[in-house]
């Protein structure tokens, strides 16, 4: 009875707040009650090594298969000049439901003490349990999920350690349609401590940019199907293109059935690696229009997400950038071409003031159109001393998709969660309480994270889909899904690694507006066949198993509504 009253009071409060000027999207800051005690460190001592400001990403995924999405934070180990009594390490928080989390790092065995930068999730051995790949400054780590709540470090056996390099984003993908997840690992720059030199700007200590260090090539590891990988960076055509890699996303931008790779480069042109279907890549960034912003300028590119924001059946890319630079919205024109639609779409509103990092195409109000969320925060903790228009900590920005190709900045009318300042780096988006609304986790540099609970009360319908590959990779990474509900047709793709060096959204989420049935779902498995399902109910999580042609309803262990 007490709980019911609490729920009613909370709902009344939400309604009251809405009446007082909140829009359809409401994000509440619930960090304090999550029990998450993680505090990020970037290893800094004041020397301002370049690797400090690029840390770190995070992952949201269901590691234990209980139907609740868990959170894995990367962390930075102490760099020269600083020490720590207790070495900082990555932390895994198990979702207990009701926005309560428990630190299970120790028992899960995933507390890597390296300098964590990027992370991706994928079931590389198709055993039904998602594995973790951590891209570090220093040796990388592949954690194999044992399926019992624990992981084992299998890096050495798998051969994906990659040595002493500065990592960035990472992504599992099946490059050659053999049913095994391969691994793309982006690298930032070539760096060693002896290459570091202090820098001042306007007399104040500042970080050096990537252009002052040699670029580094990325890596592609082919999955041999026996728990080991082979480095095919050279043979695949990847090595020929060294850059200053940051966020990456692997997605089929040209609808040819093969997963391509979009690699952002910091202060340099982006690489769009087109996959020929056999795992050979051509770099087509400039010709496709995805290398530069609308003015042909290289920007300080940070995070990237892929999604079809305008329902034209083509995946677009949203790219976050440095302060005083507009984020880039690469609108997919078809035929392998993109145009930066940032001005015409209004997708940079409210963002020029700071550096932009984690981002996502996310339908927060379930109206059927993907909105854009960006985490903001500066590199330099003293930035305000040399430019009073910029702050180190900053509020995030939420751009609501108006359904006409344009976005509106609704940050000020979308709940108290949008007022919370952080020094955002990785940002992840998933439904943490299985209420059909996507929540937000922000990794804040040198600070505790921020957890935002989506309490949008729109009455819109939704559908979440979890794919289960049989012949193809187990989690359906790279599979293309088309969902038709009345007049609304949406596409989505299961991605591994996205945003700012992070991972989220393994479970697809589609808002449906007021449509209360889904007419048809098509799933095109990567390198496999196509499954078609028709006439489906909404407001639930379903699983689609490859080749069965029918869904099963997934139930979480707990569904807690406020």
């Amino acid at each position, binding site marked *: 009875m007490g709980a019911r009253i609490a729920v009613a009071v909370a709902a009344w409060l939400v309604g009251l707040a809405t009446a007082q000027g909140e829009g359809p999207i409401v994000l509440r800051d619930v960090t304090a009650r999550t029990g998450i005690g993680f505090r990020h460190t970037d290893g800094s001592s004041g020397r301002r090594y370049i690797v400090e400001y690029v840390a770190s990403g995070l992952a949201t995924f269901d590691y234990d298969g209980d139907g609740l999405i868990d959170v894995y934070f990367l962390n930075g180990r102490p760099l020269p000049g600083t020490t720590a009594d207790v070495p900082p390490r990555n932390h895994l928080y198990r979702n207990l439901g009701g926005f309560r989390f428990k630190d299970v790092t120790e028992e899960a065995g995933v507390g890597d003490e390296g300098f964590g930068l990027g992370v991706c999730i994928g079931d590389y051995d198709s055993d039904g349990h998602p594995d973790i790949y951590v891209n570090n400054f220093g040796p990388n780590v592949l954690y194999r999920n044992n399926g019992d709540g624990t992981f084992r470090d299998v890096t050495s056996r798998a051969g994906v350690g990659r040595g002493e390099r500065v990592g960035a984003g990472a992504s599992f993908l099946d490059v050659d349609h053999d049913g095994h997840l391969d691994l793309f690992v982006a690298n930032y720059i070539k760096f060693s401590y002896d290459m570091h030199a202090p*820098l*001042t*700007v*306007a*007399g104040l200590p500042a970080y050096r*940019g990537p*252009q*002052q260090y040699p670029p580094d090539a990325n890596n592609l590891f082919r999955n041999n199907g026996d728990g080991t990988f082979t480095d095919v960076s050279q043979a695949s055509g990847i090595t020929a293109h060294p850059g200053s890699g940051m966020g990456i996303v692997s997605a089929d931008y040209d609808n040819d059935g093969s997963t391509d790779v979009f690699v952002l480069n910091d202060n*340099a*042109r982006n690489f769009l690696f087109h996959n020929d279907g056999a795992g050979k890549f051509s770099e087509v960034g*400039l*010709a496709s*229009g995805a290398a*530069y912003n*609308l*003015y*042909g*300028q*290289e920007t300080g590119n940070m995070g990237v997400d892929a999604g079809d924001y305008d329902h034209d059946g083509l995946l677009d890319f949203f790219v976050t950038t440095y302060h005083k630079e*507009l984020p880039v919205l690469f609108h997919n024109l078809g035929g392998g*071409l993109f*145009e930066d639609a940032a*001005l*015409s779409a*209004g997708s*940079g509103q*409210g*963002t*020029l*003031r700071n550096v932009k990092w984690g981002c996502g195409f996310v339908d927060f109000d379930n109206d059927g159109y993907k909105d854009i969320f960006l985490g903001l925060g500066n590199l330099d903790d003293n930035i305000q*001393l*040399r*430019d*009073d*228009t910029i702050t180190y900590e900053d509020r995030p920005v939420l751009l609501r998709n108006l359904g006409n190709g*344009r976005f509106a900045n609704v940050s000020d009318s979308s709940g108290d969660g949008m007022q919370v300042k952080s020094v955002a780096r990785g940002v992840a988006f998933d439904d943490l309480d299985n209420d059909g609304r996507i929540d937000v986790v922000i990794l804040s540099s040198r600070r505790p994270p921020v957890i935002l609970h989506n309490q949008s009360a729109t009455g819109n319908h939704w559908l979440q889909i979890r794919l289960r590959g049989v012949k193809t990779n187990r989690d359906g990474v790279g599979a293309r899904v088309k969902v038709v509900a009345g007049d609304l047709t949406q596409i989505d793709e299961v991605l591994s690694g996205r945003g700012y060096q992070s991972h989220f959204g393994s479970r697809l989420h589609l808002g449906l507006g007021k449509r209360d049935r889904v007419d048809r779902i098509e799933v095109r498995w990567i390198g496999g066949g196509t499954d078609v399902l028709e006439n489906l109910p909404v407001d639930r999580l379903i699983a689609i198993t490859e080749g069965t042609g029918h869904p099963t309803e997934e139930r979480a262990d707990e569904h807690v509504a406020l």
Partner: protein
Amino acid sequence: MSEEPRSEGPSDSPLAGGPLPRPEAIPSPHAAVTVESVTGEAREVARRIIERFPEEPDALAVVAAERALSGKTDEAAACWRKCLTLDPRSAEAHHGLASAAMEKGDHAEAARLARKALELNPSLAGAARLLANALLLSGQFAEAAAVMEKEVRREPRSAEAQFLLGEARLQMKQYEKAIAPLERAVELLPNYTQAYYSLAAAHTRLGRADKAQQYREKFKVLKAKSQAEGREWSRKYEDLGTVRRGVAMIYRFAGNVYQAHGELKEAERHWQRAAAHDPADAACRHALAVLYQQQGRIPEAIPIVESLRQIEPASAAYPLALGGLYADSGRPEAAEAALKEACRLAPDDSQGYAALALLYLTTDRKLPEALALARKAVQLRPTAMNYALLAGACQRNADLPGAVAAIKEALQREPGNQQYRRMYEQFKTQP
């Protein structure tokens, strides 16, 4: 450094009604130059000028510039607002406030203020560009295009104006219409990297793959060059030098204000200090050179113009000026060398030839060469003055008919010029 200013003590200028400079305002030439010390100097320049001219919008503009340079956008905006209370029709103040609004990401406000600045002064440098950018960022593409259409009519040789017009049209998806201004932009500025990118985009949208590829290739070449330059700049970045360049600008602005109020000693001191801070600041050196020339301080003008020649080695204007200065100071060989350099740098400009001819004539040397040079000057620019020079050269080379013919041409162009008339009369009566 010899360019370090010295304390001048109390000013004896009748206009010097304000407080005297405090001793700490004048940096010691032996003090270590640090970012802190030079930014402190800039603050002091701003403090003194506003103390001296508290109700003067130009002085407030100096303070606003200093505040903006220090990253204090709000304080800069406050200065501009005060400017507006003193002069509500100040285009510069509206422009300054528009810039501050842009810095803060308030594009609608920036557009409103920039539009007002442009209304008040349609030729205010940068105002149309600022307005167009603010409109583009606000998604008002047609309005941005209209602003730039007007601007390219006013400044048809501005590559940036042409480029922005092209960009606005691209945003309006008027790809065909975007091409003309973008092509004009690269005509005016053949290394305009971004314009080639936009041209490639326009042709791509129009399905002209070959043309797009052609522009893309050009873009690639230019981009590779600019990236290499960017890396080099980044590698060589020197914080103190960068800060000093900004501080030099503040000194120069302040010098201009003192000059406008007739306080030439203060103006000179500020420009000198600007020159000391920024070895590449041409504007402050130009101001000093003009001042010295006006005051007949030729020996002081010469090294300043020499430094300008080093800063802008491709400009013929400085060797030309040096020719005159060396000639005035009795150094004909140096003058000759400078003027030959001017002719080499600007072979299609008559001024160098005319000045060199005049030098030979006035020093009574190389008279046949003087005649040839005068003819060249006339050929390039048949003005009354060049014809008069030619007449003089003919006369000195004993070509009286030629002298008469040339001076008649000069008179035809300037019938009221008494000097030409006297020359004509003199040549006519000579045997």
